[in-house]
């Protein structure tokens, strides 16, 4: 096993660190307080090469692979988790289109996702009654002579306010559950699309989360991504990769909280002498180191084209829950200062909590992992 980053991976990580330090960090607290879509951060991300990291250069991407992507996300999330999730989803949407799209779809959309002409991409799977269970989806796409007509609604759509391209899942037949679902590319200016008001959230205020409504949205035949009725597989494959992004994001937030707490403790001799404080920092550092390895292993497997679904779930459930623990410990170690808005740790705590929920809750990850364990034992 070789754990050292390649020169390319190092370069991407350094670019991400520079973007995080120079662009994201100075405004992160203000963005959290005000809320809203981080327009300027996103525009700068395209220039910094953070919008399409694992996308082929022929389509405008960085072509740097999944490990580079994971390293970059962790760097960015340490500074501003909100902007980072919008970028994670953009990278994921670009990969979905690059992987499942035909040549025309790829050529039309991926470069625009890479250079910011689409602003960002958005991923529209969840609905009010279909969260952990996408099979409960009710949005429908009806076939017409020259395309499709979409009706229904979606919920929890990251960047729903500003996205220029939505990947939307809808039922295209009466087949029950996860069968009969298809994937569509829906441009943000499609008539009949209504973007909801941003949700008022506990944290992650530097990204917008909205509902979407589709009222007789007409789409051409060319909007269908992948085969008709095979949309569930597209969603699951996208989410497998997405989970590496969210694990990397949570890791970055947890590391930021640990760094702040460690600096605070180091500056206070009495505090630094307490074993309870020392061990809290030691536990966070140990767990986040393990989370990093799980996350990078999943990234490396995906990069090599191997099966990585279970490993992505290991990474996501562990990294997000341990990052939450690290943020909690940071507050505990810092006491009153940890609660103070100006110190940043309370923002880390609020931001990181959602990583245990979106792109598959911790419960869903445990289902994925346990099913794979049981399947393997069933085979032998």
């Amino acid at each position: 096993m070789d754990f050292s980053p390649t020169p390319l991976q190092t370069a991407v990580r350094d670019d991400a660190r520079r973007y995080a330090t120079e662009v994201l960090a100075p405004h992160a607290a203000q963005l959290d307080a005000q809320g809203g879509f981080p327009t300027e951060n996103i525009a700068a991300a395209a220039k910094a090469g953070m919008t399409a990291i694992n996308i082929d250069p022929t389509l405008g991407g960085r072509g740097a692979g999944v490990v580079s992507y994971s390293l970059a996300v962790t760097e960015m999330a340490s500074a501003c988790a909100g902007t980072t999730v919008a970028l994670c989803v953009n990278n994921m949407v670009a990969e979905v289109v690059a992987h499942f799209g035909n040549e025309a779809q790829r050529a039309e959309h991926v470069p625009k996702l890479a250079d910011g002409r689409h602003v960002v991409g958005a991923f529209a799977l969840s609905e009010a009654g279909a969260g952990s269970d996408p099979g409960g989806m009710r949005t429908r796409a009806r076939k017409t002579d020259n395309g499709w007509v979409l009706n229904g609604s979606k919920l929890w759509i990251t960047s729903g306010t500003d996205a220029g391209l939505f990947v939307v899942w809808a039922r295209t037949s009466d087949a029950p559950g996860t069968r009969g679902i298809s994937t569509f590319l829906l441009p943000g200016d499609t008539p009949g699309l209504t973007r909801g008001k941003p949700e008022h959230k506990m944290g992650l205020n530097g990204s917008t989360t909205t509902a979407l409504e589709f009222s007789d949205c007409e789409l051409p035949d060319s909007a269908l991504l992948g085969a008709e009725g095979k949309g569930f597989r597209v969603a699951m494959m996208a989410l497998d990769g997405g989970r590496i992004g969210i694990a990397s994001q949570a890791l970055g937030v947890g590391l930021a909280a640990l760094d702040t707490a460690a600096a605070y403790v180091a500056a206070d001799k009495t505090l630094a002498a307490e074993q309870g404080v020392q061990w809290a920092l030691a536990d966070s550092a140990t767990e986040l180191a393990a989370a990093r390895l799980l996350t990078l292993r999943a990234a490396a497997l995906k990069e090599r084209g191997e099966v990585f679904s279970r490993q992505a779930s290991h990474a996501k459930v562990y990294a997000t829950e341990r990052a939450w623990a690290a943020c909690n410990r940071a507050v505990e170690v810092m006491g009153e200062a940890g609660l103070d808005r100006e110190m940043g740790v309370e923002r880390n705590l609020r931001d990181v909590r959602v990583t245990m929920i979106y792109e598959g809750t911790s419960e869903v990850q445990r289902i994925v992992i346990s099913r794979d364990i049981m399947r393997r034992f069933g085979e032998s």
Partner: protein
Amino acid sequence: MRFSLTDDEQMIAGSVCELCAKSVAPDAAAWDEAAALPSAIVTEVGELGLLGMSVPEAHGGVALSCVGRAAVLETLGGGSAALAMVVAMHDSLASGHLRHAGSAAQQEAHLPEWAGGETLATWCAPGPKLRATQTDSGWLLNGESPVTLAAAYAQILVVNADSDDGVVSLLVGIDDKGVRRTSATQLGLHAVGASRLLFEDVQVAKDAQLGEPTDNALGRVAEEHRIALAAVACGVGRSALRAAAEYANEREQFGRPIGTFQAIQWKLADAATELDAAALVTGRAAWLVDQGKAAGAASARAKVLATTAAERACSGALQIHGGYGYTREFPIERAVRAAKMLSAMAGTNRAARNAVAQAL
């Protein structure tokens, strides 16, 4: 040790429960958002006698036992932890300090107004940045207090400050010359009126000194502080647990209520078990106070157990609510933030654990 409330205690707890359902729980989110409590709700809790719960009847109070007060704070905390902490800062801490350390004359002068809610008081913990120095006529206060809850609403402060003789407790008017307060934005309890208090050459007369630094009033007040935090934490946790159980019964995924999944059931079961234990340990600490016995370690155990149980219960409740739980439309994320605040208060649970360990 007792496991039930007296009729009087039950009656007041019942009234608080009604008040919560009618005037607290429905508005608590708006208060958090506005980072302020409306004066009407403070008046209302005053009319129920909650601002004089701990005060003897001779001074116009309700003279409720510590066990009864814990029950009231738990119930109120389930509706709004911020409101419950304003009540606790006034009654358990400020009045408490006056009860434990004040002279008869000081008690007579202040407690009736405090108990009736005409004057709101709060309590400043000692901190490294605040010092009192003795003068011919009394004391001179200089420095900054730790973030003080309810200071935005208080007219009078019980200030604890380090001096050459130890920690001295002084009554200081919020409008006294040299006192400045600036609001502090923290993780949660946004409506609690948390403020930083700055003291610049504040002169405090000798007769505004409560007791002597040596008489350990601070120790008794610290017990009541921890019990109050524990009680409010139990309320926050139980309220989140109830909401999560209701949601788990209603929310369907995979064709059935999510409450039928074992993973969800166990989350709820663990929260219920831990909160039950926390409430019992809190009740025992309060009972010890009522018996006039030392409750230092018992109250510290209660604070650690209850705030930890509340944190876990609230985070579990958020998880059960999924994305909905992360939004401010639901009361859960506010409960998560409140539980973390309660846990980090009174010198964090490190201080409470140290107190437990020292007693062993």
